[in-house]
């Protein structure tokens, strides 16, 4: 990465790149706030079914089967949360020059990311098979938009982490450059935190 990544003097004492990531995350909060509000406003406004309560649980006597297994999404959520912990360990390794630790935990984080993306791909195809698509109704539209854009963020995060992984393998992430990994980690934490909001709002709210 860039050749002068050591902590340099700045007016705030914070590294500029770290500050930039924080700033960007602040902006992203507004992005997800808008998507989540739209979902909340629209989830029960559809003119035709399926409605959220039909999608998640199966009330007796309704012809809609539950089209998503909450346990699967819960597993995905848990995996994502653990990955935040893993990336902290990777960073810990990176900062102490423990390359093995860094590479190992980074790999684990990436695998978690893949698991989550896989979960979502499965979930989306399942939905589509059961007849809920973007076009079906407002619920489908706002659900796919919200979770889809979160998934896109996860994907970008995974690509970023893979880049870090390759750098680490090549020995190009020495401790004094660990800020590079730290930035990816900050973004990854953010993506996780957003899911912590989305999960109850989308899957648990009745």
């Amino acid at each position, binding site marked *: 990465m860039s050749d002068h990544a050591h902590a340099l*003097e700045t*007016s*705030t004492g*914070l590294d*500029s790149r770290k500050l*930039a990531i924080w700033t960007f995350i602040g902006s992203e909060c507004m*992005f997800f706030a*808008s998507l989540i509000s*739209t979902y909340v406003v629209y989830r029960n406004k559809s003119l035709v079914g399926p409605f959220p309560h039909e999608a998640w649980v199966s009330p007796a006597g309704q012809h809609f089967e539950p089209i998503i297994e909450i346990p699967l999404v819960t597993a995905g959520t848990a995996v994502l949360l653990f990955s935040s912990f893993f990336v902290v360990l990777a960073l810990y390794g990176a900062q102490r020059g423990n390359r093995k630790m860094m590479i190992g935990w980074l790999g684990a984080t990436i695998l978690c990311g893949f698991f989550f993306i896989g979960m979502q791909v499965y979930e989306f195809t399942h939905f589509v098979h059961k007849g809920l698509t973007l076009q079906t109704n407002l619920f489908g539209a706002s659900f796919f938009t919200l979770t889809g854009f979160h998934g896109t963020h996860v994907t970008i995060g995974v690509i970023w982490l893979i880049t870090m992984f390759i750098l680490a393998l090549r020995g190009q992430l020495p401790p004094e450059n660990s800020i590079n990994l730290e930035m990816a980690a900050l973004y990854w934490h953010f993506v996780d935190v957003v899911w912590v909001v989305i999960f109850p709002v989308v899957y648990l709210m009745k």
Partner: protein
Amino acid sequence: MATTVVGQETHAAGAAYGEKTGLWSWLTTVDHKRIGILYGTTAFCFFLLGGLEALLIRFQLVKANNTLVSPDFYNQLFTMHGTTMIFLAIMPLSAMFFNFMIPLMIGARDVAFPRLNAFSYWVFLLGGLFLNVSFLFGAAPNQGWFGYANLTSRQYSPGPNVDFWLMGLQILGVASLAAAVNFFVTIMNLRAPGMKLMRMPMFCWMSFITQVLLLLAFPVITVALIMLMFDRFFGTHFFVPSGGGDPILWQHLFWIFGHPEVYILIMPAFGIISEILPVFSRKPLFGYAAMVFSGVFIAFIGFGVWSHHMFSTGMGPIADTFFALATMLIAIPTGVKIFNWIGTIWGGSIQYKTPMYFALAFIAMFIMGGLSGVMHAVAPHDLQQTDTYFVVAHFHYVMFGGSIFALTAGAYYWWPKMFGRMLDERLGKIHFWLMFIGFNVTFFPMHFLGLLGQPRRTYTYQAGLGFDWLNQLETVGAVILFFAFLTFLINVIKTWRRPATAPADPWNGATLEWSLPSPPQEWNFAEVPVVHSRDPLWERKRERGGPLPEPLRVSGQGIHLPAPSFWPAVAAVGVMGLFLGIMLSPKVGPWAIFVGVSVLFFGVFNWIFEPSYTSIPGVGGRPRAGHH
């Protein structure tokens, strides 16, 4: 923050490194000053284009039942005029000053992320071109600059017009976001030693607030545009009532962005005026802290008043009352600002130079625009005025009488610093009077036309409604305005022929940029200055008991500077390809998206992994903080 210091040599040694010319050097530049000039020239061209559209609008309205242009082309004209003026003229003209002046004013060598800076510029340029090529297909956006649903649905806007607008705005959003992150970090992190936040020049403060507004407002319209895009391309029903969607949601999202956006347009103007008034009154800014806090307060409430654009949608008395009161609250901090400006001039020894003319006119025009704004805040009043020319009068008093007057003031004020040449005073005064008279002749009658009931965005009108002579008068005003800008162009061309000999400090300035040669050297400060007060340069002059000596040009030996790079431009092309692809047919679209994303990633990766510094031949120096 120490940097290796540098022998006091003359121009020659640095010249080999510093003065590059030719197209390639502009394509790859990462120097904030050159990027500022790129922003300025590009935005001025777009401004002229928007002005041409305005002139056509005015000629269409010069008499009753006129058919100079077709109704559909008329729709394209006013939509592109509004969109161009807001997104391609005022915002990037402000960005020119952010780019050129902020690092100089805070004592920095560049912005925090020089290549990201270049990237924002290229994305902005491509986004602007993208919006305007639509004219070549006869399919320019034609739905009004706020794209109200349901008008923008496939059903009512089947052609690609709205798609151009949709994608163009998304591209410009990428540019704005990148720039906002960059300047936020620059102002936070790269201030010279001793320049505490409460010692920053007011222009930097107001720009800082602008960046925060950009960061928080743009994602909201991004989401709205995404949903509109899904409605148009994938058959969702976010804003389509037949599927349960709600057009009012569009208005909410649009104005949660749109109202802060008007502060994005006016905040930099506040900043410019607060720089000019003290210098030409020979007095420090009156009520510095009040200025800062009123700015923050305006920005803060600005996020809570968006629904004053929606009184006529029938939100009900409670919402109407809330938003009316919240809106009127903004008048308080705005009034604080105006009184502080007047306090600054009060008792000063005023120098009537061109920048001061424009600055004083700004205050007067902005007060008028503000007052008609408060009138709109009264919901029953608004119900009468909305969608008439009264609104058109209001926002032109704020955006033109406010932003454009201030930006022009800034241009005359900082021109010598940017180009090493003084603009001609006499032509400047002519420019001023033409613009001042032309502006008021064009826009003041709009108040009356609005009250008489002429609807805005109207293609033509019947004779005998009493609209005729006022419209004719306005068209005369628009022609005067045309000559005003012509005068400015003549001024620029005339002074361009002269040698670049402007002194470093022609106005007896108070801020750091005037301590540098005009135009500044590529590395800005050979020695990073130390700041002890709000008016560092005045302080230095006081200590010396007189003006400072002309700063010498120094060789810049040993200073690290970011290396030129063309990857930001490549990445910008990728962004453009991505959004273009979304617009194209399902056959080619996905491929274009794929190519766009690949080019984007390719550009970004190369930019990240290329070495980011060169040092000027000579001894190695330490890099300045945060340059990446």
